[in-house]
Structures are given as C-alpha cells and as structure tokens.
C-alpha cells in the first residue's frame, strides 16, 4: 500500500465537516486540536477547554500571548465574543454531564462496538496520563475519534476488541482516519467514506473489525495541502 493517505491536517479538515453550526466542541490533543483551523466558513463553533473556557478562538499571535489564557495543550489562544471562564469542575460538568455537542479525541484503538483506547501504549515507559479523556468520552453527546488508520508499524487500530488500556466503553460515534470515515452503529461499523483512490476492500484489509458497506462508497473530502 504505497498510495498516499490523508495527512494529519487533512484528517482534521475532514473531521471539521462533522461540526454543526453553533456546536460546543471539545478537542483533544494531537490531530483533534488541528481541527479548529478547519471549521468551514459560515459555521460558528464554540471551543471548550477543560481548564474552564468556553469560546476559545484561534491561537494568539506572536507577541500577543496571554499565558493565563491557554488551551488544554498549553498553547496561548484568544477568545471569541460570548466566551466565558469557569472553574475546572464546572468545565467537567459540561463534559461528563452531556452538555457538549461534539467532542473529538485521538485514538490508539477503537473497537467495533465503539470502545476507545487512547491514553497508554502497553509496555511503554512512563506513567501515561488520562487527563480529561475519560470524562469527555463518557459524556460527549457525539464522540468523534481522529487517528491514523494503522500504526507506524502497520498494526490495525480499528479492532474487534481493544487490547490497549481502555478510555471508555461504547463511546465512539464516528472514526475519521487517513483512509476512511466510519460510523459506529448498533449493527457494527459502517463505512461511510473512503480516502480518494482507495476501495472499500482495501480499507477492510487494513481494518481488523468487519466494515459494513454496500454499493459505491463516496470519497472523503481531502483538503488541498
């Protein structure tokens, strides 16, 4: 498989199309965080951060950083009109209580029933870190996972059953990868879109869990690099 897959930025840009106008959205570390830059024109989205901000705007310009106003990745950001500050426990009332419309997290593995593993690689050194991911995964009205379809060494990440430490059970609604858009349904995984130039059969061969599809599967949007 040497055909070009989507870049991380292109995954983020495709995921951004899932955000409805007016949505309150939390973005995790990594590819999810890139999504903010790709919200379509005409769509207004309010970004939430676990440290108690709703209504984060773009990253602060050089020289205009306020280091009391950072996102969950510690990057200085700006505010949009209508933003508010609150305490961390109230930020998690929003995550866990089901008040955020869409959350996007990174993934190490997603199972066919929507289990997510995203916080620790088994056997890796160090303590790992959960952060807000478990609260977010449990509480999100709609959870999107963005990740590469396979790991650097070619291991399949969309699996029948996760063998990495879990983040939450049956929480993922949609997976956006560099090869496909896949919805988690009560009947299993439904292949909604494939990356340009790929066939459903090729995607299935890179996916441990069974993918459901029929007829011609549409192509994913791939943003111009």
């Amino acid at each position, binding site marked *: 498989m040497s055909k070009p897959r989507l870049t991380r930025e292109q995954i983020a840009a495709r995921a951004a199309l899932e955000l409805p106008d007016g949505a309150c959205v939390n973005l995790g570390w990594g590819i999810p965080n890139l999504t903010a830059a790709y919200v379509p024109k005409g769509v207004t989205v309010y970004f939430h951060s676990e440290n108690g901000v709703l209504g984060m705007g773009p990253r602060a310009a050089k020289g205009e950083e306020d280091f009391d106003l950072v996102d969950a*990745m510690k990057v200085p950001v700006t505010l949009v009109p209508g933003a508010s500050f609150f305490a961390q426990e109230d930020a998690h009332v929003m995550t866990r209580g089901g008040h955020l419309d869409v959350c996007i997290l990174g993934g190490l593995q997603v199972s066919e029933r929507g289990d997510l593993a995203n916080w620790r690689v088994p056997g890796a050194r160090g303590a790992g870190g959960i952060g807000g991911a478990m*609260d977010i995964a449990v509480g999100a009205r709609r959870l999107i996972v963005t990740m590469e379809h396979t790991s650097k060494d070619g291991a399949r990440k969309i699996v029948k059953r996760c063998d990495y430490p879990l983040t939450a059970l049956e929480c993922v609604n949609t997976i956006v990868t560099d090869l496909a858009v896949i919805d988690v349904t009560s009947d299993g995984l439904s292949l909604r879109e494939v990356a340009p130039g790929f066939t459903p059969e090729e995607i299935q061969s890179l996916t441990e869990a069974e993918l459901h599809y029929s007829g011609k599967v549409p192509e994913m949007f791939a943003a111009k690099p």
Partner: protein
Amino acid sequence: MTQQSKIFPSVDAAVADIPDGASIMFGGFGGAGFPNNLIQGLARKGSKNLAVISNNCGTGEGELGILFKNRQIRRVTAAFPGPGATYFQEQFDKNEVELELVPQGILCERMRAHGAGIPAFFSPVGVGTDVAKNKEERVIRGRRCILEQSIGADYAFIKAFRADKLGNLVFRKGARNFNPVMATAAKTTIVEVEEIVEVGALDPEVIVTPFVFVHRMVVAKGLRYV
C-alpha cells in the same frame, strides 16, 4: 484583627509549619494558575514524605518539578503527570514514587465532594477501565457506575489573581482552573495572590471564592514556567 490575621508577611512564613507527611493540593493547569512561589517556599522549607494532589507533576524543575527533584514527594494523585515531568517520570520508572492516576473531571469532583460534605459518589467515568480496579461497580438506572471516594488534604496551595483583606478571591482567565475547588477541600488553604485590596473593593457578584475557604494569604508576583 481577625481580618489582618490571614495575611502572612512572606512566602516562607506562610509555609513555615508544613510538616513532613502532610497532604497538599496544588492548583494550576497548562502553565497557568500555579502557586509557584509557595512551591518554591516549600522546596526551601524541605518538608518530606508529602502526599500531593495535582493535575500534573511539574515541567522540568518548574511547578511541582522542584519538589520531585528534591525527593520531597512520596505519593501523587494526578490526572496527567505530563511528558515534561522529568523528575517525576524518572522516580516513577524506578518505583520511587507512588502514583494514583485519576480522570481529571473525577479528580475535580472528588475534591468538590469533600468540600461539600459528600463522602462518596457513583460515576460512569472509568467503568471497564484500569480506573475501575478495586472499586465497587453498580448499575444505577441502567448505567454502569463505579463508586468514587471524596478526597481532601491538610493543605491547599493555590494561586489567585486578587484578594481582599478578608480573603475573598478572584482569578484571571484560565488561571482559575483547579484553584477554587481545592480551596474548598483542604483544612488549611494558602493563597498566593498578585494583589490584596481593601475589604469591599471586590464586587460581591464577581467573587469566585468567598473568604470562608481561605486561611492564609501572601502577596507574590506571579512566577511562570512556560
């Protein structure tokens, strides 16, 4: 008299009685709202064998890092130790420090519960994960939950933006984060603050932490590790 007694003349005076073995909460998230002056004071004081609660475990020698470097910490409850927590990670790899890893919202909620007189609660967060180990599981109205215990501490070290002389606090932007909830969950809450104003100078509508949760204050210019 009562009103003045919370204000300490120096950072070192504010932390002078922290004993070995104390449990301490530390505010701060993403480089903002860390009580770095108090942490430096605690490093100078040298109290050992501490059980600490903090979202993360420092960045190099910054934030909690200096306390790990000095081997003052025996046990830490955290949500995200962090890739920059080099001293913690080194000791963790050698089993020289104990870690309880907690989902971040549940860490907040356990502290809030303590401050609110709620000894325990059932939550769906962490069900089926490593976090559920050794915890009671129960289905509540159709939802699998685990039982979480409230968590308090002897001290909370927090950072506020401005205080009045009574101890009413306001914070600044994302530097609010864990600070208000920790103030409710400790026997003694020690605040470092940029400025202390007269009683009555803060609008009663915008006070975030009422003075009832504040026991010691010290003025210190904010220290930041980016």
